[in-house]
């Protein structure tokens, strides 16, 4: 129970306008909550408030009434006694007359109107009284914005919830609404106003009702908003956009047929305006009105509508028809919004009332167009006006034809015959009969205009079938007149189009385009009710296919025909046309696939592959066919190469594999069963290699090996674990039947390893590379047979200098399960065992000269590999290979977060030292390899150890490595004696820094920025490191644009500027200069006093950049100079 004096206090607070809004709000909430939990009843409250509600002090009374209203607003869901509601309604209704308190009264009325059903609602009688009081007492337009909105909302509520009770007020209501909304300008209010009109229209549908009599007044009030002009783009709190408002207005205008005499003339007038927005809105609105007002009312405007619509078509159509392959599946010219709306209005009108079509067909323009068509044969010869005429008329006719079966009939009857006549398909003989120009003489001249019109009509009828097929299953089209017309002319039409395709006159592109487009359209009539017979359809396919297979090279015709075939293919697939699919398969797909297999035709192989893959990608069945075809082609080409030494075959193989990887693999997720096919393909690759015993001649087939590796990797990458297993088994058996396993017998000792050469035969190299690809892409769950000896094999190959072997080894150690875990199925080898082979300590070595010194330095350097790295054996080549190989192994371990990676890292660091444990510095080339190894370790690789190839990735592995290695490198840099070692250490550091996420850098800017700057100045001396310089500079620019980085940049400003100025004249890489200048601009964000001292220096440097040989640098320099000038 709220204490009475406390309640008074709340009330006082709210009523006192000198208090702050938050205080008032708090007291409101306090009262509302005590009502909510029944510690205070409404009766008590009202009794307590009596003084505030009835006092003659206007301010206090207004506040009091508002308080009561706001409280009610908070209690919308609380059940209240009917009597209480009634009394309150009576009170607020009465207070509507009190203009000083009208705000509170409106809030109160609205709160009561919005009460939930269960909680006691306003009765109809009360609502009526409220409406009356509202109409009599409230002058909405005299109120302020917020009250106006409340007023409109109240009216909206009344109309929505108590329409019947209010309807009795009739004219008064309409009149009052009219008055209330007249001249409203606020967008939020207008949204409600437009809705009010709609509600009124629903309320009074009768032609003798009050709305009918007052329609003219009401329309006058809302008509003036059309077309809606609203330029506010900024989001205010209401967030009303122009589209919302204009949609609301359209709904209001089309809400009742009584507006028709006023609305249609207005809309037609606005349609002729030059403002695009007005046109679009008018067209949209006319469409809505045509639907709502009904045919009878619209009829008298048809004349005006047609001419306005025609003008709109003429003004919104462009004359550049595109003849590119892309436009075969699109309208061929750009459609703007006006055009689209005009199309949909025309369609709506024709669909609604067939008599509108009379205006279209009888239009003088339709008759004229035939003159135009037969006057110009070439499209490009036509003047723009004639082009426009042909395009617009074709468009209008096709849109109307598409509207309904009936309209299609009428249009075909009206013009199709004449059209055929002007195309020369029909001729008048002496007897006056009309004869089809069957097989004998196809018109010698192709009239482009006529062809266009014809194609548009055919497309319209085709779309008509499709539109209806989707809604109703079996309509008979055979008895429709358009159908029989198309059917009877289909043979000569196909002939005309075919002759256009094969034409060879000057403007053949246009001819061919129309020809192909025509054939395409005729090929896409829907199956069951197609007027094109199956043999005709097959003829179309044959014509198009013959263009593809003709030995003509890649021409426009070829591309157009291919695109058309693809369109037909996807059409068949989309509408499940099984008959046509069979024809398509036998004529198009089989032909192309067999072409791909034979590889002895005149066409370049690349083109055959392109055509085949494009065509086959339209249906899953064709894909299957294609993969089988390619498999066969691959095997025959490879064996042709092996037996006959035909180098062309091996090129074909690479192209074929490229096609497979680029075109088919990306869609593997969409096509069911493709995975199996591809796995089959991969296995038969292995089979083929196995059987092709010895290559007849050595080849330099790098390209082929690369292509084969990519394909193998990708296929294994997408394959399921079971399929991966079978591929691995197959691959393993091929490997073990080759001479490769001989390498396993090479012991891992210095003596044995020293003499290693890159000496594999090309066949073995191919097998090794492919096998490595399989291992790279295999998932961790796959079991690798005889893993331990494979590790050995790969290790030896790595030492021989085969990088794929190193990558495979990296992937293996990345994915092998650890001994105890048992997650892995390759039971015979755990990660530890693999590591034992790799980190094999060579105690039996004859060259253990300095092992006494090395033992005390570090654990890692005892292994054979690390000794080779550090140059214990004299072969530089072997040393660099080992370093690179070690980097890949390290990457695999690093990504899974295995601690032995540190050993590798330490060996690599050791290589960079000016005096390492072996007592002398390494050869510069070996050092360089060791420095670059850090790039291998840290950067993301495309070919292996990524998520696509199922690598095991531990979160934040880069960050971890960064925090271990950077301090080591840093301290070494401090102490290094020779410039070479220093440079190499910086290269390594740069690789590490530029590959960690930028947030890590930003957390350590203070420490890193000096290092980065020093690194930049050291590395910029040598052109070999230009890419490294660039990536390091990018890191620096990242720190400069961040607030954390800017603080430390402020401290280092002078070094940074000095360094950047040096880089603005970096001769080896343009992007470095460009970025350096951009960084200088970014520095302007620093405090003015820090950078002003350098102004002169920077401007001088930039002046030189103004004369840079590269334009982009100069442009940046101008910008930078301007920015520094104004500091």
């Amino acid at each position, binding site marked *: 129970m709220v204490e009475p004096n406390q309640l008074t206090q709340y009330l006082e607070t709210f009523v006192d306008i000198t208090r702050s809004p938050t205080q008032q709000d708090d007291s409101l909430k306090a009262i509302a909550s005590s009502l909510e939990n029944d510690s205070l009843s409404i009766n008590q409250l009202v009794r307590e408030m009596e003084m505030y509600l009835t006092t003659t002090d206007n301010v206090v009374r207004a506040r009091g009434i508002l308080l009561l209203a706001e409280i009610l607003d908070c209690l919308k869901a609380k059940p209240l006694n009917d009597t209480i509601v009634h009394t309150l309604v009576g009170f607020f209704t009465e207070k509507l007359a009190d203009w000083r308190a009208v705000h509170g009264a409106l809030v109160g009325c609205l709160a009561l109107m919005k009460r939930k059903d269960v909680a006691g609602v306003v009765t109809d009688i009360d609502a009526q009284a409220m409406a009356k009081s509202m109409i009599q007492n409230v002058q909405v337009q005299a109120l302020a914005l917020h009250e106006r909105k409340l007023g409109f909302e109240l009216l909206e509520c009344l109309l929505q919830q108590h329409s019947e009770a209010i309807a009795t007020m009739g004219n008064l209501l309409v009149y009052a609404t009219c008055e209330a909304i007249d001249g409203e300008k606020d967008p939020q209010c207008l949204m409600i106003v437009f809705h009010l009109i709609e509600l009124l229209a629903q309320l009074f549908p009768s032609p003798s009702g009050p709305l009918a009599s007052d329609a003219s007044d009401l329309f006058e009030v809302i008509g003036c908003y059309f077309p809606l002009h609203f330029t506010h783009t900024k989001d205010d709190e209401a967030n009303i956009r122009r589209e919302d408002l204009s949609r609301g207005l359209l709904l209001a205008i089309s809400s009742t047929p009584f507006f028709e005499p006023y609305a249609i003339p207005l809309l037609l007038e606005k349609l002729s305006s030059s403002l695009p927005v007005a046109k679009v809105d008018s067209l949209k609105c006319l469409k809505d009105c045509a639907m709502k007002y009904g045919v009878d009312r619209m009829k008298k405007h048809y004349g005006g509508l047609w001419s306005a619509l025609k003008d709109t078509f003429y003004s919104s159509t462009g004359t550049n028809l595109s003849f590119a392959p892309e436009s075969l599946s699109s309208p061929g010219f750009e459609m703007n919004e006006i055009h689209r709306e005009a199309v949909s209005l025309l369609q709506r009108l024709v669909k609604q009332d067939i008599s509108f079509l009379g205006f279209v067909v009888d239009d003088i323009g339709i008759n004229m167009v035939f003159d135009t068509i037969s006057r110009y044969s070439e499209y490009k010869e036509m003047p723009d006006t004639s082009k426009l005429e042909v395009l617009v008329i074709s468009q209008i006719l096709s849109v109307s034809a598409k509207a309904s079966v009936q309209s299609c009939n009428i249009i075909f009857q009206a013009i199709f015959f004449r059209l055929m006549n002007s195309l020369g398909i029909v001729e008048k003989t002496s007897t006056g009969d009309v004869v089809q120009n069957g097989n004998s003489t196809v018109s010698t001249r192709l009239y482009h205009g006529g062809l266009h019109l014809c194609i548009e009509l055919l497309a319209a009828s085709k779309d008509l079938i499709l539109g209806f097929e989707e809604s109703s299953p079996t309509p008979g089209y055979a008895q429709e007149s358009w159908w029989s017309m198309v059917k009877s002319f289909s043979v000569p039409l196909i002939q005309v189009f075919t002759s256009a395709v094969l034409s060879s006159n000057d403007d053949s592109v246009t001819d061919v385009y129309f020809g192909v487009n025509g054939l395409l359209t005729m090929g896409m009539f829907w199956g069951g009710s197609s007027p094109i017979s199956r043999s005709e359809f097959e003829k179309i396919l044959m014509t198009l296919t013959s263009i593809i297979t003709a030995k003509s090279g890649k021409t426009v015709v070829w591309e157009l025909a291919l695109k058309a075939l693809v369109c037909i293919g996807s059409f068949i697939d989309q509408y499940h046309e099984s008959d046509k699919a069979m024809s398509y398969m036998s004529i198009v797909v089989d032909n192309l696939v067999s072409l791909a297999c034979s590889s002895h035709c005149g066409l370049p192989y690349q083109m055959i592959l392109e055509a085949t893959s494009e065509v086959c990608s339209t249906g899953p069945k064709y894909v299957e066919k294609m993969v089988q075809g390619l498999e066969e082609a691959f095997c025959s080409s490879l064996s042709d190469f092996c037996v006959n030494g035909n180098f062309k075959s091996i090129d074909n193989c690479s192209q074929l594999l490229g096609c497979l990887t680029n075109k088919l693999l990306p869609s593997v997720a969409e096509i069911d069963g493709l995975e199996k096919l591809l796995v089959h393909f991969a296995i038969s690759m292995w089979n083929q290699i196995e059987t092709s015993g010895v290559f007849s001649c050595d080849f330099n087939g790098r390209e082929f090996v690369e292509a084969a590796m990519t394909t193998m990797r990708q296929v294994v990458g997408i394959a399921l674990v079971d399929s991966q297993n079978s591929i691995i088994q197959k691959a393993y058996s091929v490997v073990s039947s080759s001479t490769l396993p001989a390498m396993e017998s090479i012991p891992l000792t210095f003596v044995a390893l020293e003499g290693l050469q890159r000496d594999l035969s090309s066949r073995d190299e191919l097998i090794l590379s492919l096998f490595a690809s399989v291992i790279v892409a295999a998932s961790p769950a796959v079991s690798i047979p005889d893993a331990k000896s494979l590790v050995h094999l790969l290790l030896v190959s790595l030492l021989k200098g085969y990088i794929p072997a190193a990558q495979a080894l990296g992937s293996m150690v990345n994915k092998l399960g650890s001994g105890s875990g048992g997650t892995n199925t390759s039971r015979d080898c755990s990660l530890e065992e693999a590591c034992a082979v790799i980190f094999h300590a060579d105690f039996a070595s004859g060259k253990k000269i300095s092992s006494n010194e090395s033992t005390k330095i570090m654990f890692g350097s005892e292994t054979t590999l690390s000794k080779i790295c550090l140059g214990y054996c004299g072969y530089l080549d072997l040393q660099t290979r080992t370093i690179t190989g070690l980097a890949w192994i390290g990457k695999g371990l690093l990504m899974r977060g295995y601690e032995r990676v540190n050993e590798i890292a330490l060996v690599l660091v050791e290589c960079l030292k000016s005096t390492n444990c072996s007592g002398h510095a390494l050869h510069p080339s070996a050092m360089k390899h060791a420095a670059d190894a850090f790039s291998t370790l840290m950067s993301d690789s495309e070919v292996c150890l990524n998520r696509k190839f199922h690598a095991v990735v531990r979160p934040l592995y880069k960050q971890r490595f960064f925090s271990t290695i950077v301090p080591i490198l840093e301290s070494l840099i401090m102490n290094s004696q020779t410039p070479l070692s220093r440079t190499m250490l910086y290269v390594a550091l740069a690789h590490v820094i530029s590959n960690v996420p930028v947030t890590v850098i930003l957390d350590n800017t203070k420490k890193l920025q000096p290092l980065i700057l020093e690194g930049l100045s050291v590395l910029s001396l040598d052109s070999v490191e230009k890419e490294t310089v660039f990536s390091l500079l990018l890191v620096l620019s990242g720190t400069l644009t961040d607030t954390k980085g800017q603080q430390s940049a402020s401290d280092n400003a002078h070094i940074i500027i000095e360094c950047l100025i040096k880089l603005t004249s970096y001769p*080896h*890489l*343009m992007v470095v200069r460009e970025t350096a200048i951009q960084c200088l601009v970014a520095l302007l964000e620093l405090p003015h006093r820090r950078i002003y001292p350098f102004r002169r220096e920077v401007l001088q440097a930039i*002046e*030189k950049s*103004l*004369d840079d*040989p*590269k*334009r*982009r640098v*100069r*442009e940046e320099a*101008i*910008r930078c*100079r*301007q*920015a520094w*000038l*104004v500091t």
Partner: protein
Amino acid sequence: MVTGLINENPIIYPKKERRLRTDSSTTDEFTPEPIDQLEIFDILNFGNCNPFVVDIKDPEHPNTLEDLRVVTEDSVEVDDENSYVRVTFTPTVEHCSMATVIGLCVRVKLLRSLPSRYKIDIRVAPGSHATEDALNKQLNDKERVAAALENPNLVEMVDECLPSEE
């Protein structure tokens, strides 16, 4: 200072289709790209360099010199080897008192954007201005230009014509 607009309703021409560069810069690192006509023209159209805006500070007319055809691409002659550039501009009306300011703006913009080896020659198109000779003389007189740039009011005006992209 003039208070009203000198040419109240300038004709605004539609933008000509830009000649597109065949971008070889990305492909080859070391081929130099000499400064050419289009580049100078781009420099001049960098921001809104409209003196009319300067005078009246009316954001309603943010036209560039290009829109008004005061400077067109063809009116720029450049010889990179001999470090010479000549810009011929056409004031919108014959007795446009803004012509000096336009000329000065063009000169300052080029001074700031071109290497110092360049000799810059600014001219009014023949027959396009009432006091053509005087104007040409004034714009190419080093001392007078230098003196003009000592005048803080003038510099401020020029700077506003050449806003930096910030």
